[in-house]
């Protein structure tokens, strides 16, 4: 039940999962490389247990995937889930849209000052 928490609830929960700054950093790290829980925790000052809980939440939301390599478990970003979330492109689009809105505002002002 606990494991399916995130899937059962509305999609907003995925966004709650990624709203947390620590979890965003974990996602960023894992977007670059698969890592073991220990290696992830080494990047933070927080207790290992705290980081482990963050990893658990991300995994419950299927934003992370596990991969067994020998004795080690590696976590990686589940790119399919990000695509499924659909809005994964949204922040990238928003970043450009904000910039372009600014450009437009500046140039409109520039025009009226002429």
């Amino acid at each position: 039940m606990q494991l399916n928490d995130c899937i059962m609830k509305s999609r907003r929960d995925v966004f709650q999962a990624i709203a947390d700054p620590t979890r965003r950093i974990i996602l960023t790290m894992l977007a670059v490389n698969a890592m073991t829980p220990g290696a992830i925790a080494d990047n933070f000052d927080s207790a290992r247990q705290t980081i482990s809980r963050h990893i658990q939440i991300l995994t419950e939301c299927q934003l992370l995937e596990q991969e067994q390599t020998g004795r080690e478990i590696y976590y990686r970003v589940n790119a399919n889930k990000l695509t499924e979330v659909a809005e994964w492109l949204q922040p990238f689009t928003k970043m450009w849209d904000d910039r372009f809105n600014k450009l437009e505002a500046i140039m409109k002002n520039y025009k009226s000052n002429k």
Partner: protein
Amino acid sequence: MELKTKIQAEDNQQDLLVTREFGLPLELLFKAYVEPDIVAQWMGTKVLKLENKRHGSWQFETTDPNGNKHGFNGTIHEFIPNRKITRTFEMEQTAFPVQLEFLEFEKLTDDTSRLTMHIVYKSVAVRDQMLQLPFAMGISMAHDRLQELVEKLK
């Protein structure tokens, strides 16, 4: 609110298309890309160099809220006023490979224009990473952590 900027990123491709229509005459839109003072304002960066010509180069430096400096640079391959800029884009001190950008400027009406940016990355994986970065980082990214990551990627 619907965003005016459109991103087209096909699965398993190493490029993407950014399209945006502006309520600006073509000449003003283009000017926003060539005047260093204006570029600095809307990109939120310091413009160290911007040579708007073939074989010219550009160099920006952005300071994040924590005071860390991030460098960006590239070379200009094509520069056709009010029509086209072809250039490379590189984030300094990161593992991300250089990317190639084709910018096309089009007049729609006397007061409107369109920008199309075609960005080509080294691989599908790099493109997907670039697309995911803002998603993963959010706006309130702890920049010192990012800095640490960047150090590790070197």
